[in-house]
């Protein structure tokens, strides 16, 4: 039995251990969907839950329906998890990479030849954490505008995520004020690796008009490493989309 499901999760290494965060929902319209939803609408976290799902003999196809991403040309990496003697699945088996030891394993389940689930998930569902380090709200408003119907970055799987623990990309707006600097550093530390930083707006890129003000620590890249700079005062939403797209291209390698 195969159940279609959509993946709306992210991958992160939490507590020095790999966790896959996949809320699994059957697509509506299938027979008994309510029943299945009840059974399967769990947030699968960690290997224990994987085992449970697997032991109940629900092979899960990941991910078949890509409506969430609205991109048709995804290299899907269709895989099946099937129960194996009720043994817990180890993430090294799944992804071919052991985060704690750094060693590689076979990746016997989910590792497609050149694009593993890991990389796939990272480039198809980059979750952004937005932090304002002293901006005038101009850039912030444009970042929020990205989520709204005209720009709608959710079609790239991009989502604003409130918690640093679950975020892949840190979007920083504004010159870094002295008051914000320790917070920014804390948030950066809290994010799971690999993490990426996007500097949005002239202030974050260079300090902008606030260079030399007494309460400014300096531009963003003096404090944390920056991957993408998006200049503008404020940059148009299109420019921010392009910046994030460039970052994604970089991730794909």
């Amino acid at each position: 039995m195969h159940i279609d499901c959509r993946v709306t999760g992210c991958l992160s290494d939490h507590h020095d251990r790999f966790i896959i965060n996949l809320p699994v929902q059957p697509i509506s319209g299938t027979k008994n969907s309510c029943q299945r939803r009840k059974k399967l609408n769990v947030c699968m976290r960690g290997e224990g839950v994987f085992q449970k799902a697997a032991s109940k003999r629900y092979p899960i196809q990941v991910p078949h329906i890509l409506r969430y991403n609205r991109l048709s040309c995804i290299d899907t990496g269709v895989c099946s998890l099937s129960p194996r003697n009720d043994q817990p699945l180890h993430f090294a088996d799944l992804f071919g990479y052991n985060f704690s030891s750094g060693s590689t394993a076979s990746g016997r389940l989910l590792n497609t030849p050149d694009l593993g689930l890991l990389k796939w998930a990272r480039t198809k569902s980059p979750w952004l954490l937005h932090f304002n380090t002293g901006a005038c709200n101009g850039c912030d408003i444009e970042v929020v505008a990205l989520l709204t119907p005209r720009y709608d970055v959710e079609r790239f799987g991009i989502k604003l995520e409130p918690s640093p623990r679950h975020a892949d990309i840190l979007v920083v707006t504004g010159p870094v004020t002295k008051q914000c600097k320790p917070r920014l550093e804390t948030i950066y530390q809290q994010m799971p690796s690999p993490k990426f930083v996007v500097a949005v707006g002239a202030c974050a890129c260079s300090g902008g008009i606030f260079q030399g003000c007494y309460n400014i620590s300096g531009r963003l890249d003096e404090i944390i490493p920056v991957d993408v700079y998006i200049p503008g005062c404020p940059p148009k939403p299109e420019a921010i989309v392009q910046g994030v797209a460039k970052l994604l291209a970089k991730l794909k390698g």
Partner: protein
Amino acid sequence: MEKFENAVEVLKNNLADAIVECRVPKPRKAYILLKPERHREAISLLLKHVEDAELSTISGTDLGNEIELNYHMACGGTVTLKNRVSREKPVTRTITDILPGANLYEREVFDLLGVTFEGHPNLERLMLPENWPKGDYPLRRDWKPNANQEGESNSEEASQTESAAELDDAGSVISVVMGPQHPLLHEPERFTFKVDGETVVDAEMRLGYVHRGIEKAAERMMYFQDVFLVERICGICNAAHTTCFCQAVEDIGNIETPPRALYLRTIIHELNRVHSHLLLLGVAGHLLGFEALFQHVWRDREPIMDIVERITGNRLMSGFNAIGGVRRDITPNTVEKALKSVEEVRKRAKFYKVVFEEDATLRLRTEGVGVLSKSDALKLCVEGPVARGSGIDVDVRKEDPYAAYGEIPFNVICYKDGDTWARLMVRAEEVVESLDIIDYALGNLPAGRLRVRVQRKQPEGEAVSRVEAPRGELIHYVKSDGTAYPYRVKVRSPTLANLVAFPEIIRGAYIADIPAVIGSFDPCFSCTDRMVFLDTQNGRRWRWSLDEVNNSKNRNVVS
């Protein structure tokens, strides 16, 4: 107008012995220099004799030997009461006992200029970062950057460790921390709510995360450059800031702005208001869990952004106003397009008004939540839609018309309920009013020049300028010493005025109501923090956010 003249008369008649100098250089603007320590009498008199008199702000200026404290009182115009204290021993009496709304303003002056207010309930050295050196006041004229700035690195870390124990809660009261990084707030500010069960018993705020030091920066730039600086105080209401600053400088230099420029300023200013209010209505939907409303409102905000982009060349930072006029003209083609968009948006705005009126869930979440009575609102000197939601009929555009508002008919929207719903409704209706203003201004655009030539140097003088920003009355105070650089620029944003009332309002609400109430305040911390840093009751304590607590545990586990 009568109210203003009445106010000046009252002061002249009753306080003749205390007045050293009284100037009324422009209609509805008075500058009264008082003998030292007579400011309390003057303010009491105004509060007693003038209806709805409020304190707009207190600005301090370092004059060299003395520090001048300007109490800007809003009563039909602006009456600026000047009280000078010596720079060697800067001490004066507080006015918080007469007017509790002065609390934050006095703290601001205390922190940045080092004036002590005797009798202030909570005057603590708090406004700049924790590690700012003591006795270092950045707004004094002889202050040099980086003189005492060494060793700034670890003190915040230290204060965090010290106060970790303070999260211990007394009895059934628990502290809930929100921010500085929190999904509810798109700006870094921190609220600590004390909750008993589900009820909020107290709230504390910690601002200053966006404090950049713009007022000091303005002193080292020329007037025409400062227009671009004040624009960046706030990306949302940038036209309000530039209009206000340009008006102040035009007042000082006696510059006559051409009528076409005044109309164009009004148009951009109102477009700002429309997009700001729509933005807030959407965010309010988001905060109430009405996600569809958020998406719909923000979609309908886009045509407004398009008009702004077409007129000014940028979606947000318009760079439109200049001293003596505006920088770009508007073509007939653009007028036509703009009128069409305004018509479209008006239809939608009326629809949203109906949504806010009739949606049962929305009303359940907002009605009777976070009530601010009219008398409290007056006492705490709140402004803008927050005041109008509490039944105070205050709007600078009507009371003290600037730009083209004197010639344009419009209504001031006012609700008596004083709750979250009323504050949202005020904004929903104001969107329609603003669209009408834009419509009228576009249809009646006078011909003529766009701007007059203005010299870089401005004559000696001072000016207070007020505009009605989307969030309420915005004040700029500019003092000139006859050079091309301003001697002092002071900005008071509406959010600061309204924040005084926040702990009052949130007391007694449920935790789940916090987002709705914060939303209905429409706080804009980039405006507020440009010069201010405060912690209303908490003293110098530092608390951990939940994230940080988690983080430290994790660190211990890992290491």
